């Protein structure tokens, strides 16, 4: 017994040592944004505002595609901003693996580094809810570029977002759809085990009630389900004028496909998560008649978006999605606030400058923050027509 305890203590002590050395070594290795800063510094010495921005992104695991799009959007913006030479931004990118625990660790690592001015990310709302209160208490600005759940900017004064919440996107789409079709009865289908789709559903229900629409039925499905016929049969029997679907595109595409095969021909209205070219690829002709509200319309003829598409394709060899576009704009918003703050070292001055952002011209349109730090901007409503996303016409 005595010996066992002694051994236990020795081993515990060894762990502590391993822990210390491990932490010591990891603190020295930060991941710089891959941009050389020195060349620009030499040209306009003294004038350039230096700033280090921490990024928490979903880079490994099931949803790594989102994080990759976001970091690519950020890096593209970083390259352009640094080339202009007014501000020089260094990105310190940390992976969160889509888990709240990991995101908090990454956040703590960034916050503990005094040279980090502000943070962008994490990717998921469930990660953001865990990190943002901590950032707020530490007095470091944090902005979500892909977090659309309710109540995010309300966490604190230092918490912002530039992603359009479902509370803005869905009502815009619903209003336009109802105006054109004159719908009176709607059916709702949503995924109830996902924070994003559930938040979308709540907005749909609220908006439908406000608009005086009759909700014929509310159906739910689970993540990863592949057969929706039971729910769709019920929806079909209630004979709605519109189907509101709060779904992510991979499930949404299957739902719309099965619905068309069962003879449900009415238009579908979806949220931001439904907005992906993948829907057309998966559902084909069945996708026609899907109406979504979105901050970003990739096939728009707006010269700014056309240019962004071109630059992004040159750099990464594929078309950007809305996550890349939102991240791209986010870094420009940060750079804009940096210019107004005049320094890259004062976290509070930066926060105040950011909060004053008004009518900022990004690729997504005119952008402002309201008093809590939430998005104020116009929503584009698009629909799928003849196998293509086009802007919605009334």
């Amino acid at each position, binding site marked *: 017994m005595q010996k066992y305890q002694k051994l*236990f203590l020795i081993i515990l002590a060894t762990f502590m040592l391993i822990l210390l050395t491990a932490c010591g070594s990891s603190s020295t290795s930060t991941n710089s944004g891959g941009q050389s800063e020195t060349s620009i510094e030499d040209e306009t010495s003294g004038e350039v505002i230096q700033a280090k921005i921490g990024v928490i992104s979903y880079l490994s695991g099931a949803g790594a595609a989102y994080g990759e799009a976001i970091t690519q959007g950020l890096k593209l913006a970083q390259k352009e901003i640094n080339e202009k030479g007014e501000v020089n931004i260094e990105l310190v990118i940390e992976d969160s693996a889509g888990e709240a625990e990991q995101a908090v660790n990454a956040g703590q690592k960034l916050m503990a580094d005094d040279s980090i001015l502000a943070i962008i990310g994490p990717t998921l709302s469930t990660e953001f809810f865990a990190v943002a209160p901590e950032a707020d208490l530490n007095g470091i600005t944090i902005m979500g570029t892909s977090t659309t759940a309710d109540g995010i900017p309300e966490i604190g004064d230092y918490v912002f977002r530039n992603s359009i919440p479902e509370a803005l996107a869905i009502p815009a789409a619903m209003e336009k759809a109802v105006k054109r079709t004159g719908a009176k009865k709607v059916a709702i289908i949503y995924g109830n085990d996902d924070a994003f789709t559930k938040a979308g559903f709540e907005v749909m229900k609220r908006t439908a009630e406000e608009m005086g629409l009759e909700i014929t039925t509310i159906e739910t499905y689970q993540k990863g389900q592949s057969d929706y016929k039971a729910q769709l049969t019920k929806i079909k029997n209630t004979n709605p004028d519109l189907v509101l679907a709060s779904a992510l595109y991979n499930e949404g595409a299957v739902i719309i496909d099965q619905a068309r095969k069962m003879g449900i021909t009415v238009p579908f209205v979806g949220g931001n998560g439904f907005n992906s070219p993948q829907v057309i690829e998966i559902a084909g002709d069945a996708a026609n008649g899907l109406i979504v509200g979105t901050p970003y319309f990739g096939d728009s003829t707006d010269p700014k978006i056309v240019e962004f598409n071109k630059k992004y394709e040159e750099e990464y060899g594929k078309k950007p999605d809305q996550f890349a576009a939102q991240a791209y704009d986010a870094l420009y918003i940060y750079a804009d606030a940096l210019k107004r703050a005049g320094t890259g070292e004062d976290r509070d001055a930066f926060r105040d400058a950011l909060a004053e952002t008004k009518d900022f011209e990004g690729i997504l349109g005119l952008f402002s923050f309201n008093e809590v730090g939430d998005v104020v901007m116009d929503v584009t409503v698009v629909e799928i027509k003849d196998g293509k996303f086009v802007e919605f016409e009334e």
Partner: protein
Amino acid sequence: MLGELLNPYYLQVLCFILINIMLALSIYVPLSSGQLSLGSAGFMGIGAYTSALLTIHYELPLYVTILVGALLAGVIGIIVGIPSLRLTGVYLAIATLGFGEVIRVLFVNWESLTKGSVGLTGIPQLGRELLKFAKSIGIEPSALGLKNNQFVYLSLVIVLLIIVLFILWFVIRQQNSRIGRAYSSIQMDEKAAESMGINITYYKVLAFAQGAFIAGLAGALFAHTIGYISPSDFSYHRAVEILIFTVFGGSEVIIGSVFGATILTLLPEVLRFVSDYRYIFYGIMLVILMAVRPQGILDLYLFYRLKGKRIKRGTS
């Protein structure tokens, strides 16, 4: 040097290590009586949600709610443990895994209480409550040479460390008691143990409930460490992760769980510098380890060797 060591990032990682040690122990205890339970994630969720909801809605002190959370998980452990007595090995593992999923789906669907998949925000953080308490009795962190932030995390780590040490002490003491010997006899041969007059039902349910209690405690502490919980924190993924802690470290000895949880929580953090590829490294290391040492890094044989005793392999 001290200020450097008290970096909130290191302390936060240390908190998760300590919580994960508790979770690994919650698998180890039932395993020491021959029951492979994968319900830890579910029990953890029960503890976390109970404690979080009690503090949010009734503003009860944290030490009460954490204990209530752990006790509730323990009681549910008894309720689940009795019918699953008939099951052994993989069958029990599948049943408990199913139980964990039932709990998760309950959290997702009981929206009026749990806010569904969006999760619970604004859970009081244990460290901050301790700071408030310290200030109310007149201890200022600055008097100890600490910033508020450092005090918050340091106190959290100390509380967690005390709890972990207590659990370790308890489990080690128990192993060398009547109960512990009953557990290991059941693990070796259930029928032989029964014929020796050991009440199998009692001891198996006891081990199961102890595991559930520890998992519930870890869950409650997790909720008050991270300040936000959602059902996805307690998914099947978590259950497997906890199992890996114990299997990786070595499931024959208690120190294996501690070792496994420490290393596997630390590894993703230490590997941050390879960013995108870190989980590949993590996976490769697991594969190599399982191929070379299927019993886990630490086992009884290694301990005898360390003590300088020579025994024949296979007798342990």
